[in-house]
C-alpha cells in the first residue's frame, strides 16, 4: 500500500521532467504586464507577468537581464521569450525569461535598429558631417509643440542665460502619426528664415511618444538641413535616430537651450577679464616704453652732446696721425733715395777728382820738364829781341840789341858777329 505514496520532491521532479520534456514549453512567447517587479542586488530580475485574469511568476537572470536597454517596471507591458519550468522548492511553475521587449514597441525596436544601421551606413551620423554650433546665436529656431513644458523650458533658459537671442517657434506636433511629417515640414520651413541654430525636440515621454524622432524622413530632413541642429528629445537613456543625425544632442529641452546659448554670467566674467588683460597689457606697454625712453635719455650721446665733436676730433686726430706717418715715411724714403744718390755722386766726384788730380800731377810733371826756368837753371838762357824769342840766326843781324834772360836776371848785349853753322 505504502508504495503508492510518493514524496513531494518526487512529484516535483516528475513534473519538472514533464515540463522540461515538452517542446512547446521550452519556447514560449508570452505577453502581459509586469507586476511586483524586483531587481535583486545580484542583478537577477524577479517579477510577475499578468493579464486581466491570470498571472505567472517570472525570473530573468543577470546574464540576460543585463542586455536590456530599459529598466522594467510595474505596469509595463512586455513581450517575453523563455521556457516554462518548475521551481522545485515551491512547486510553482514559472517562466525563465531569455528576451524581453516592451509590447507595442517590439516591432518598432527592430525597425529602429534596422533604420539606425541603414542611416549609419549611409554616413548620416558621420562626425565629419556635423555642423558647428555657433557660440552666440542671434536667432534660434525651435521646432516643438507650442504648448507644454518643452517650449517653456527652452525659452526661460535662453532668457535667463542669454536674453539677446531672438527665437522663432515653428510649432509642430511631436507625438502621434502626423508628428513626423510635420516636423519634416517645419525643418524645411525653418531654412527660409535667417536662423543661426535650430532646436528640434520635445519633453520626455514613453518610447511610443518619442517615436516620431526615430522616423527616417525626420532623420533625413535633419541631415539635409543647412542650419545646425540640436536635438532635444527628453529621454535620457536611449538615443533616438534624430539624436544620432543632429549636429549636437541634448538630453532635455533645457539642456538644449543651455548648449545653444552662452551664459551671461560667464560672459560678464570674461569681459571683466578682458578689461583686466587690456589694462595689464597697456601698463606693460607704457612701462616698457618709459624704460626705453629713460634708457635713451640716459644715453651717453644725449647726456654729452659735445662728445659727438670729441669723437670726430679724435677721429680726425687719428687720421691726421696716419697721414703724418705716411708722409713721413714717404719723405724718409725720398731722403734715403736722395742720400743714396748724393753718396753715389760724391763717390763719383771723389773718383773724378782723384783721377783729375793724377792727371794734373802728371801734366804738372810734364810741364816741369818743359819749364824754361828749369832749363835756365841748368845754364841755358833765352835771347829775345824786343820780346821776341830768338830761336834762329835768321832773326838777327849785326849790331842788334838783344836781351838775354838768365835764371836770376837778364842783361843786354850787342851782336858783334853772326856765325852760321
Amino acid at each position, binding site marked *: 500500500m505504502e508504495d503508492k505514496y510518493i514524496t513531494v520532491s518526487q512529484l516535483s521532479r516528475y513534473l519538472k521532467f514533464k515540463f522540461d520534456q515538452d517542446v512547446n514549453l521550452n519556447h514560449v512567447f508570452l505577453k502581459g504586464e509586469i507586476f511586483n517587479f524586483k531587481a535583486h542586488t545580484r542583478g537577477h530580475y524577479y517579477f510577475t507577468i499578468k493579464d486581466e485574469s491570470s498571472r505567472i511568476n517570472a525570473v530573468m537572470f543577470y546574464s540576460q537581464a543585463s542586455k536590456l536597454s530599459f529598466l522594467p517596471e510595474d505596469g509595463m507591458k512586455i513581450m517575453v521569450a523563455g521556457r516554462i519550468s518548475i521551481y522545485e522548492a515551491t512547486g510553482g511553475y514559472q517562466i525563465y525569461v531569455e528576451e524581453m521587449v516592451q509590447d507595442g514597441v517590439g516591432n518598432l525596436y527592430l525597425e529602429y535598429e534596422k533604420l539606425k544601421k541603414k542611416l549609419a551606413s549611409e554616413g548620416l551620423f558621420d562626425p565629419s558631417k556635423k555642423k558647428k554650433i555657433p557660440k552666440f546665436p542671434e536667432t534660434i529656431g525651435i521646432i516643438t509643440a507650442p*504648448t507644454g513644458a518643452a517650449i517653456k523650458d527652452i525659452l526661460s533658459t535662453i532668457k535667463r542665460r542669454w*536674453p539677446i537671442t*531672438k*527665437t522663432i*517657434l515653428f510649432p509642430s506636433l511631436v507625438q502621434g502619426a502626423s508628428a513626423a511629417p510635420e516636423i519634416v515640414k517645419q525643418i524645411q520651413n525653418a531654412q527660409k528664415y535667417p536662423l543661426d541654430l535650430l532646436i528640434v525636440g520635445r519633453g520626455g515621454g514613453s518610447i511610443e511618444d518619442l517615436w516620431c524622432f526615430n522616423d527616417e524622413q525626420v532623420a533625413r530632413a535633419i541631415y539635409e538641413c543647412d542650419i545646425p541642429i540640436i536635438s532635444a528629445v527628453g529621454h535620457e537613456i536611449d538615443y533616438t535616430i534624430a539624436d544620432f543625425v543632429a549636429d549636437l544632442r541634448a538630453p532635455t529641452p533645457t539642456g538644449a537651450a543651455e548648449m545653444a546659448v552662452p551664459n551671461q554670467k560667464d560672459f560678464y566674467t570674461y569681459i571683466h577679464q578682458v578689461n583686466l588683460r587690456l589694462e595689464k597689457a*597697456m601698463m606693460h*606697454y607704457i612701462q*616698457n616704453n618709459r624704460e626705453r625712453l629713460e634708457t635713451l635719455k640716459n644715453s651717453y650721446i644725449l647726456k654729452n652732446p659735445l662728445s659727438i665733436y670729441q669723437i670726430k676730433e679724435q677721429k680726425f686726430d687719428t687720421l691726421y696721425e696716419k697721414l703724418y706717418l705716411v708722409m713721413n715715411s714717404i719723405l724718409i724714403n725720398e731722403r734715403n733715395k736722395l742720400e743714396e744718390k748724393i753718396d753715389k755722386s760724391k763717390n763719383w766726384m771723389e773718383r773724378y777728382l782723384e783721377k783729375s788730380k793724377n792727371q794734373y800731377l802728371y801734366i804738372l810733371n810734364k810741364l816741369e820738364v818743359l819749364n824754361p826756368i828749369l832749363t835756365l837753371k841748368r845754364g841755358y838762357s833765352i835771347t829775345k829781341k824786343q820780346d821776341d824769342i830768338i830761336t834762329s840766326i835768321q832773326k838777327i843781324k849785326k849790331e842788334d840789341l838783344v836781351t838775354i834772360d838768365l835764371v836770376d836776371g837778364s842783361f843786354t848785349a850787342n851782336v858783334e858777329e853772326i856765325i852760321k853753322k
Partner: protein
Amino acid sequence: MANKEKELTFEENLEKLEMIVKNLESGNIPLDDAIKNFNEATLLAKKCDEKLKNAEEQVNKIVNKDGTLEEFNVED
C-alpha cells in the same frame, strides 16, 4: 537693430576683441597702434557688455500656418 547696416555680430565683435587683446599682450606693436588698439578694445568690450545689459524684453515669435510671424509668449 535693422537701422544699422552691416553691424558686426556679437560673435564677430568678441572675436575682434579677443584678437586685439592677444595682439596687445604679445607686445609687438608700436605704441601709437597700441593706444589705438587699447581704445578700440575698451570700446568693443563696453559695446558687447551694453548690448547684453540693455537687452530689451526677449523677442520670441511664432510662425503661423500662413507663414506670418507673431509675438509668442508661453503661458505660465
